[in-house]
Protein backbone atom coordinates (compact mmCIF):
# COMPACT_ATOMS: atom_id res chain seq x y z
CA UNK A 1 0.00 0.00 0.00
CA UNK A 2 2.76 2.37 0.99
CA UNK A 3 4.51 1.71 -2.28
CA UNK A 4 1.35 2.42 -4.25
CA UNK A 5 0.94 5.84 -2.61
CA UNK A 6 4.62 6.49 -3.19
CA UNK A 7 4.36 5.78 -6.91
CA UNK A 8 1.32 8.06 -7.08
CA UNK A 9 3.05 11.00 -5.38
CA UNK A 10 6.22 10.51 -7.42
CA UNK A 11 4.19 10.56 -10.63
CA UNK A 12 2.64 13.91 -9.74
CA UNK A 13 5.63 15.75 -8.35
CA UNK A 14 9.15 14.38 -8.68
CA UNK A 15 8.72 12.50 -11.95
CA UNK A 16 6.27 14.91 -13.48
CA UNK A 17 5.71 14.10 -17.15
CA UNK A 18 6.17 17.69 -18.30
CA UNK A 19 8.79 19.08 -15.98
CA UNK A 20 11.10 16.10 -15.64
CA UNK A 21 10.69 14.30 -18.98
CA UNK A 22 9.11 16.89 -21.32
CA UNK A 23 6.49 14.39 -22.42
CA UNK A 24 3.43 15.71 -24.22
CA UNK A 25 4.91 19.14 -24.82
CA UNK A 26 3.23 19.64 -28.21
CA UNK A 27 -0.31 19.62 -26.95
CA UNK A 28 0.83 21.23 -23.69
CA UNK A 29 2.00 24.31 -25.59
CA UNK A 30 -0.75 24.34 -28.18
CA UNK A 31 -3.83 23.92 -25.98
CA UNK A 32 -2.74 26.00 -23.00
CA UNK A 33 -4.25 29.32 -24.05
CA UNK A 34 -7.33 29.13 -21.81
CA UNK A 35 -7.86 27.23 -18.56
CA UNK A 36 -11.12 25.72 -19.75
CA UNK A 37 -9.78 23.86 -22.78
CA UNK A 38 -6.59 23.03 -20.92
CA UNK A 39 -8.46 21.30 -18.13
CA UNK A 40 -10.59 19.48 -20.71
CA UNK A 41 -7.51 18.11 -22.40
CA UNK A 42 -5.94 17.31 -19.02
CA UNK A 43 -8.95 15.23 -18.01
CA UNK A 44 -8.89 13.48 -21.37
CA UNK A 45 -5.23 12.57 -20.87
CA UNK A 46 -5.87 11.22 -17.35
CA UNK A 47 -8.73 9.16 -18.74
CA UNK A 48 -6.72 7.76 -21.65
CA UNK A 49 -3.77 6.97 -19.38
CA UNK A 50 -6.02 5.15 -16.92
CA UNK A 51 -7.40 2.95 -19.70
CA UNK A 52 -4.30 2.33 -21.79
CA UNK A 53 -1.70 1.69 -19.09
CA UNK A 54 -3.38 -1.35 -17.48
CA UNK A 55 -4.15 -2.79 -20.93
CA UNK A 56 -0.56 -2.30 -22.04
CA UNK A 57 0.65 -3.77 -18.75
CA UNK A 58 -1.34 -6.95 -19.30
CA UNK A 59 -0.16 -7.04 -22.91
CA UNK A 60 3.43 -6.68 -21.79
CA UNK A 61 3.12 -9.25 -19.03
CA UNK A 62 1.26 -11.97 -20.90
CA UNK A 63 2.36 -11.50 -24.51
CA UNK A 64 5.44 -9.40 -25.05
CA UNK A 65 8.11 -9.88 -22.40
CA UNK A 66 10.62 -12.74 -22.76
CA UNK A 67 9.03 -16.07 -21.86
CA UNK A 68 5.62 -14.48 -21.31
CA UNK A 69 3.84 -16.93 -23.56
CA UNK A 70 4.38 -19.94 -21.29
CA UNK A 71 0.77 -19.64 -20.06
CA UNK A 72 -0.34 -20.82 -23.52
CA UNK A 73 2.26 -23.45 -24.11
CA UNK A 74 5.25 -24.27 -21.85
CA UNK A 75 7.36 -24.92 -24.94
CA UNK A 76 7.29 -21.20 -25.82
CA UNK A 77 9.52 -20.13 -22.94
CA UNK A 78 12.16 -19.06 -25.46
CA UNK A 79 9.89 -16.71 -27.37
CA UNK A 80 10.70 -13.03 -26.91
CA UNK A 81 8.33 -10.64 -28.60
CA UNK A 82 9.51 -7.48 -26.88
CA UNK A 83 10.61 -5.97 -30.20
CA UNK A 84 6.92 -5.66 -31.04
CA UNK A 85 6.14 -3.56 -27.99
CA UNK A 86 6.31 -0.12 -29.68
CA UNK A 87 3.89 -1.09 -32.39
CA UNK A 88 1.41 -2.87 -30.13
CA UNK A 89 1.43 -0.14 -27.48
CA UNK A 90 0.72 2.53 -30.04
CA UNK A 91 -2.03 0.40 -31.59
CA UNK A 92 -3.74 0.02 -28.21
CA UNK A 93 -3.42 3.74 -27.55
CA UNK A 94 -4.79 4.70 -30.97
CA UNK A 95 -7.76 2.39 -30.55
CA UNK A 96 -8.52 3.70 -27.05
CA UNK A 97 -8.28 7.32 -28.17
CA UNK A 98 -10.72 6.62 -30.97
CA UNK A 99 -13.09 5.23 -28.34
CA UNK A 100 -12.72 8.22 -26.03
CA UNK A 101 -13.30 10.53 -28.98
CA UNK A 102 -16.56 8.83 -29.85
CA UNK A 103 -17.74 8.93 -26.21
CA UNK A 104 -16.89 12.63 -25.84
CA UNK A 105 -18.52 13.51 -29.14
CA UNK A 106 -21.70 11.78 -28.06
CA UNK A 107 -21.98 12.96 -24.47
CA UNK A 108 -20.14 16.30 -24.34
CA UNK A 109 -20.38 18.04 -27.71
CA UNK A 110 -19.31 21.39 -26.26
CA UNK A 111 -16.07 19.89 -24.97
CA UNK A 112 -15.65 18.11 -28.29
CA UNK A 113 -15.87 21.39 -30.18
CA UNK A 114 -13.38 23.04 -27.86
CA UNK A 115 -10.81 20.27 -28.04
CA UNK A 116 -11.22 20.10 -31.81
CA UNK A 117 -8.17 18.67 -33.48
CA UNK A 118 -6.35 17.93 -30.25
CA UNK A 119 -8.40 14.95 -29.15
CA UNK A 120 -7.13 12.71 -31.96
CA UNK A 121 -3.70 14.11 -31.21
CA UNK A 122 -3.75 12.42 -27.79
CA UNK A 123 -2.97 9.29 -29.82
CA UNK A 124 0.38 10.80 -30.64
CA UNK A 125 0.72 12.53 -27.28
CA UNK A 126 4.14 11.52 -26.04
CA UNK A 127 2.90 11.42 -22.46
CA UNK A 128 0.62 8.48 -23.17
CA UNK A 129 3.12 6.34 -25.07
CA UNK A 130 5.89 7.52 -22.75
CA UNK A 131 3.98 6.32 -19.70
CA UNK A 132 3.58 2.90 -21.31
CA UNK A 133 7.29 2.69 -22.12
CA UNK A 134 8.27 3.84 -18.63
CA UNK A 135 5.88 1.27 -17.20
CA UNK A 136 7.67 -1.41 -19.23
CA UNK A 137 11.08 -0.15 -18.16
CA UNK A 138 10.28 0.17 -14.45
CA UNK A 139 8.89 -3.38 -14.22
CA UNK A 140 6.01 -2.75 -11.82
CA UNK A 141 4.99 -5.82 -9.85
CA UNK A 142 1.23 -5.73 -10.08
CA UNK A 143 -1.60 -3.96 -11.79
CA UNK A 144 -2.45 -1.77 -8.78
CA UNK A 145 0.96 -0.13 -8.97
CA UNK A 146 0.42 0.46 -12.68
CA UNK A 147 -2.96 2.06 -12.08
CA UNK A 148 -1.53 4.33 -9.40
CA UNK A 149 1.31 5.29 -11.77
CA UNK A 150 -1.23 6.09 -14.49
CA UNK A 151 -3.33 8.22 -12.15
CA UNK A 152 -0.31 9.98 -10.69
CA UNK A 153 1.34 10.88 -13.97
CA UNK A 154 -2.01 11.87 -15.46
CA UNK A 155 -2.76 14.23 -12.59
CA UNK A 156 0.77 15.59 -12.82
CA UNK A 157 0.21 16.39 -16.49
CA UNK A 158 -3.19 17.92 -15.72
CA UNK A 159 -1.65 20.11 -13.02
CA UNK A 160 1.08 21.28 -15.37
CA UNK A 161 -1.19 22.22 -18.26
CA UNK A 162 -3.80 23.93 -16.08
CA UNK A 163 -1.22 26.02 -14.24
CA UNK A 164 0.53 27.14 -17.43
CA UNK A 165 -2.85 28.00 -18.96
CA UNK A 166 -3.69 30.12 -15.91
CA UNK A 167 -0.35 31.90 -16.15
CA UNK A 168 -0.73 32.48 -19.89
CA UNK A 169 -4.18 33.98 -19.39
CA UNK A 170 -2.65 36.58 -17.08
CA UNK A 171 0.33 37.03 -19.39
CA UNK A 172 -1.77 38.55 -22.13
CA UNK A 173 -1.83 41.71 -20.01
CA UNK A 174 1.93 41.93 -19.59
CA UNK A 175 4.42 43.75 -21.70
CA UNK A 176 6.74 41.08 -23.13
CA UNK A 177 9.40 41.79 -25.81
CA UNK A 178 7.68 41.13 -29.15
CA UNK A 179 9.82 38.22 -30.44
CA UNK A 180 9.47 36.51 -27.09
CA UNK A 181 5.66 36.52 -27.06
CA UNK A 182 3.78 33.27 -27.31
CA UNK A 183 6.10 30.32 -27.67
CA UNK A 184 9.30 31.76 -26.25
CA UNK A 185 7.86 32.97 -23.01
CA UNK A 186 5.84 29.76 -22.61
CA UNK A 187 9.09 27.77 -22.72
CA UNK A 188 10.78 29.96 -20.16
CA UNK A 189 7.81 29.89 -17.79
CA UNK A 190 7.70 26.12 -18.08
CA UNK A 191 11.39 26.03 -17.22
CA UNK A 192 10.84 28.19 -14.14
CA UNK A 193 7.89 26.05 -13.06
CA UNK A 194 10.12 23.02 -13.56
CA UNK A 195 12.72 24.50 -11.23
CA UNK A 196 9.98 25.03 -8.64
CA UNK A 197 8.88 21.43 -9.01
CA UNK A 198 12.46 20.24 -8.52
CA UNK A 199 12.10 21.20 -4.88
CA UNK A 200 9.90 18.13 -4.43
CA UNK A 201 12.92 16.00 -5.33
CA UNK A 202 13.63 13.25 -2.85
CA UNK A 203 10.21 13.14 -1.21
CA UNK A 204 9.60 9.62 0.03
CA UNK A 205 6.58 8.37 1.94
Amino acid at each position, binding site marked *: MEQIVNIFVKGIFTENMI*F*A*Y*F*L*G*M*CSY*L*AVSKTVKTASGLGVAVIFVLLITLPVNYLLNRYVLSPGALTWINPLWAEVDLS*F*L*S*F*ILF*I*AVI*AAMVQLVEMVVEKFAPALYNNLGIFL*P*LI*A*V*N*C*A*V*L*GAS*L*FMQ*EKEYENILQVISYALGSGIGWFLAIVSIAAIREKL*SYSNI*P*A*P*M*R*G*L*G*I*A*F*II*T*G*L*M*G*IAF*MSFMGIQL
Partner: protein
Amino acid sequence: MNKRIFLDPLFKNNPVSILALGICSALAVTVKLEPALVMALSVTLVTGFSELILSLLRNTIPNRIRIIVQLVVVATLVILVDLILKAYSWQISKQLSVFVGLIITNCIIMGRIEAFALINKPFPSFVDGIANGLGYGMILVAVAFFRELLGSGTILGHHVIPGNWYVANGGFYENNGLFLLPPMALIVVGLIVWIFNAKNDKKVWNK
Protein backbone atom coordinates in the same frame (compact mmCIF):
# COMPACT_ATOMS: atom_id res chain seq x y z
CA MET B 1 11.82 24.22 -55.78
CA ASN B 2 13.66 21.40 -54.07
CA LYS B 3 16.11 23.85 -52.63
CA ARG B 4 13.31 25.77 -50.97
CA ILE B 5 11.76 22.56 -49.64
CA PHE B 6 15.13 21.81 -48.13
CA LEU B 7 16.01 25.21 -46.69
CA ASP B 8 12.66 26.37 -45.32
CA PRO B 9 12.42 23.82 -42.50
CA LEU B 10 15.93 24.67 -41.39
CA PHE B 11 15.37 28.37 -40.74
CA LYS B 12 12.12 30.01 -41.77
CA ASN B 13 9.75 27.24 -40.72
CA ASN B 14 11.90 25.42 -38.23
CA PRO B 15 9.66 22.73 -36.71
CA VAL B 16 10.86 23.25 -33.15
CA SER B 17 11.42 26.94 -32.79
CA ILE B 18 8.67 28.34 -35.01
CA LEU B 19 6.01 25.66 -35.10
CA ALA B 20 6.52 24.17 -31.62
CA LEU B 21 6.41 20.62 -32.93
CA GLY B 22 8.34 17.65 -31.70
CA ILE B 23 9.65 19.02 -28.48
CA CYS B 24 8.45 16.00 -26.54
CA SER B 25 11.30 13.68 -27.18
CA ALA B 26 13.74 16.45 -27.94
CA LEU B 27 14.84 17.88 -24.68
CA ALA B 28 15.36 15.03 -22.28
CA VAL B 29 18.36 13.77 -24.24
CA THR B 30 20.19 17.10 -24.37
CA VAL B 31 22.31 16.84 -21.22
CA LYS B 32 25.23 15.55 -23.30
CA LEU B 33 26.08 16.22 -26.92
CA GLU B 34 26.63 12.63 -28.01
CA PRO B 35 23.14 11.20 -27.34
CA ALA B 36 21.69 14.37 -28.83
CA LEU B 37 23.60 13.78 -32.08
CA VAL B 38 22.45 10.18 -32.23
CA MET B 39 18.87 11.26 -31.53
CA ALA B 40 19.02 13.93 -34.23
CA LEU B 41 20.32 11.41 -36.75
CA SER B 42 17.65 8.83 -35.84
CA VAL B 43 14.85 11.36 -36.15
CA THR B 44 16.17 12.62 -39.49
CA LEU B 45 16.28 9.12 -40.94
CA VAL B 46 12.86 8.16 -39.59
CA THR B 47 11.23 11.36 -40.86
CA GLY B 48 12.86 11.05 -44.28
CA PHE B 49 12.03 7.41 -44.90
CA SER B 50 8.54 7.49 -43.42
CA GLU B 51 7.66 10.43 -45.66
CA LEU B 52 9.16 8.57 -48.63
CA ILE B 53 7.22 5.37 -47.94
CA LEU B 54 3.93 7.09 -47.21
CA SER B 55 4.30 9.30 -50.25
CA LEU B 56 4.72 6.18 -52.39
CA LEU B 57 1.61 4.71 -50.77
CA ARG B 58 -0.42 7.92 -50.80
CA ASN B 59 -2.79 6.93 -53.58
CA THR B 60 -3.56 3.50 -52.17
CA ILE B 61 -4.29 4.37 -48.51
CA PRO B 62 -8.00 4.80 -47.78
CA ASN B 63 -8.49 8.16 -46.12
CA ARG B 64 -10.34 6.82 -43.08
CA ILE B 65 -7.59 4.54 -41.83
CA ARG B 66 -4.61 6.67 -42.80
CA ILE B 67 -3.59 7.44 -39.21
CA ILE B 68 -3.21 3.76 -38.38
CA VAL B 69 -1.20 3.15 -41.57
CA GLN B 70 1.05 6.11 -40.74
CA LEU B 71 1.61 4.85 -37.21
CA VAL B 72 2.49 1.37 -38.44
CA VAL B 73 5.04 2.68 -40.96
CA VAL B 74 6.62 5.05 -38.44
CA ALA B 75 6.64 2.46 -35.66
CA THR B 76 8.32 -0.10 -37.92
CA LEU B 77 11.07 2.35 -38.83
CA VAL B 78 11.55 3.27 -35.18
CA ILE B 79 11.82 -0.39 -34.19
CA LEU B 80 14.53 -0.77 -36.84
CA VAL B 81 16.43 2.23 -35.45
CA ASP B 82 16.05 0.91 -31.91
CA LEU B 83 17.36 -2.55 -32.82
CA ILE B 84 20.30 -1.09 -34.76
CA LEU B 85 21.21 1.14 -31.80
CA LYS B 86 20.97 -1.80 -29.40
CA ALA B 87 23.21 -3.88 -31.65
CA TYR B 88 25.92 -1.33 -32.42
CA SER B 89 25.99 1.15 -29.54
CA TRP B 90 24.51 -0.33 -26.42
CA GLN B 91 25.75 2.50 -24.19
CA ILE B 92 23.95 5.23 -26.11
CA SER B 93 20.87 3.09 -26.48
CA LYS B 94 20.79 2.83 -22.67
CA GLN B 95 21.17 6.59 -22.28
CA LEU B 96 18.35 7.30 -24.71
CA SER B 97 16.15 4.72 -22.90
CA VAL B 98 12.49 5.27 -23.74
CA PHE B 99 13.12 8.30 -25.90
CA VAL B 100 13.93 6.26 -29.00
CA GLY B 101 10.48 4.70 -28.75
CA LEU B 102 9.00 8.14 -28.34
CA ILE B 103 10.17 9.11 -31.84
CA ILE B 104 6.93 7.40 -32.93
CA THR B 105 4.88 10.09 -31.25
CA ASN B 106 7.11 12.93 -32.39
CA CYS B 107 4.66 15.47 -33.75
CA ILE B 108 7.05 16.54 -36.52
CA ILE B 109 6.77 13.18 -38.22
CA MET B 110 2.98 12.88 -38.11
CA GLY B 111 2.59 16.57 -38.90
CA ARG B 112 4.82 16.50 -41.97
CA ILE B 113 3.24 13.27 -43.23
CA GLU B 114 -0.22 14.78 -42.99
CA ALA B 115 0.79 18.16 -44.37
CA PHE B 116 3.30 17.18 -47.02
CA ALA B 117 3.87 13.52 -47.86
CA LEU B 118 0.23 12.68 -48.54
CA ILE B 119 -0.09 15.35 -51.23
CA ASN B 120 3.37 15.39 -52.83
CA LYS B 121 5.57 13.17 -54.96
CA PRO B 122 8.04 10.79 -53.27
CA PHE B 123 11.28 12.64 -53.90
CA PRO B 124 10.21 16.09 -52.62
CA SER B 125 8.63 14.31 -49.64
CA PHE B 126 11.90 12.59 -48.86
CA VAL B 127 13.76 15.92 -49.06
CA ASP B 128 11.13 17.55 -46.86
CA GLY B 129 11.46 14.77 -44.30
CA ILE B 130 15.25 14.97 -44.18
CA ALA B 131 15.15 18.76 -43.93
CA ASN B 132 12.62 18.78 -41.11
CA GLY B 133 14.64 16.16 -39.28
CA LEU B 134 17.74 18.32 -39.68
CA GLY B 135 15.88 21.44 -38.53
CA TYR B 136 14.87 19.57 -35.42
CA GLY B 137 18.35 18.10 -34.98
CA MET B 138 19.90 21.55 -35.24
CA ILE B 139 17.95 22.85 -32.23
CA LEU B 140 18.64 19.64 -30.32
CA VAL B 141 22.38 19.83 -30.93
CA ALA B 142 22.49 23.55 -30.11
CA VAL B 143 20.75 22.98 -26.77
CA ALA B 144 22.94 19.98 -25.98
CA PHE B 145 26.08 21.95 -26.88
CA PHE B 146 25.33 24.74 -24.41
CA ARG B 147 24.11 22.39 -21.70
CA GLU B 148 27.19 20.17 -21.90
CA LEU B 149 29.61 23.09 -22.20
CA LEU B 150 28.18 25.13 -19.34
CA GLY B 151 26.98 22.22 -17.23
CA SER B 152 29.98 19.93 -17.26
CA GLY B 153 32.66 21.94 -19.07
CA THR B 154 33.08 19.32 -21.79
CA ILE B 155 32.21 18.87 -25.47
CA LEU B 156 31.59 15.31 -26.63
CA GLY B 157 33.32 14.21 -23.42
CA HIS B 158 36.52 16.21 -24.04
CA HIS B 159 37.41 18.86 -21.46
CA VAL B 160 37.47 22.28 -23.04
CA ILE B 161 37.66 24.46 -19.92
CA PRO B 162 41.30 24.49 -18.81
CA GLY B 163 41.74 22.52 -15.58
CA ASN B 164 43.51 25.30 -13.69
CA TRP B 165 40.55 27.67 -14.17
CA TYR B 166 38.47 25.69 -11.69
CA VAL B 167 37.99 26.91 -8.14
CA ALA B 168 39.13 23.51 -6.87
CA ASN B 169 42.54 24.13 -8.53
CA GLY B 170 42.80 27.72 -7.35
CA GLY B 171 41.06 29.34 -10.32
CA PHE B 172 37.84 31.32 -10.66
CA TYR B 173 35.56 29.03 -12.66
CA GLU B 174 32.79 26.70 -11.56
CA ASN B 175 30.51 24.51 -13.67
CA ASN B 176 26.88 25.59 -13.55
CA GLY B 177 25.10 22.53 -12.16
CA LEU B 178 21.72 24.03 -12.99
CA PHE B 179 22.33 23.28 -16.66
CA LEU B 180 22.28 19.56 -15.94
CA LEU B 181 18.74 19.76 -14.57
CA PRO B 182 15.77 19.26 -16.93
CA PRO B 183 14.22 22.77 -16.62
CA MET B 184 17.30 24.46 -18.11
CA ALA B 185 16.64 22.71 -21.44
CA LEU B 186 13.34 24.58 -21.68
CA ILE B 187 14.90 27.90 -20.83
CA VAL B 188 17.66 27.41 -23.43
CA VAL B 189 15.04 26.54 -26.06
CA GLY B 190 13.05 29.60 -25.03
CA LEU B 191 16.09 31.78 -25.68
CA ILE B 192 16.72 30.09 -29.04
CA VAL B 193 13.08 30.75 -30.01
CA TRP B 194 13.59 34.37 -29.05
CA ILE B 195 16.59 34.68 -31.38
CA PHE B 196 14.80 32.90 -34.24
CA ASN B 197 11.73 35.10 -33.93
CA ALA B 198 13.76 38.28 -33.67
CA LYS B 199 15.57 37.34 -36.90
CA ASN B 200 12.49 36.20 -38.78
CA ASP B 201 10.02 38.76 -37.44
CA LYS B 202 7.37 36.26 -38.37
CA LYS B 203 4.58 36.67 -35.85
CA VAL B 204 3.10 33.18 -36.07
CA TRP B 205 2.58 32.77 -32.37
CA ASN B 206 1.70 36.33 -31.49
CA LYS B 207 -1.87 37.00 -30.68
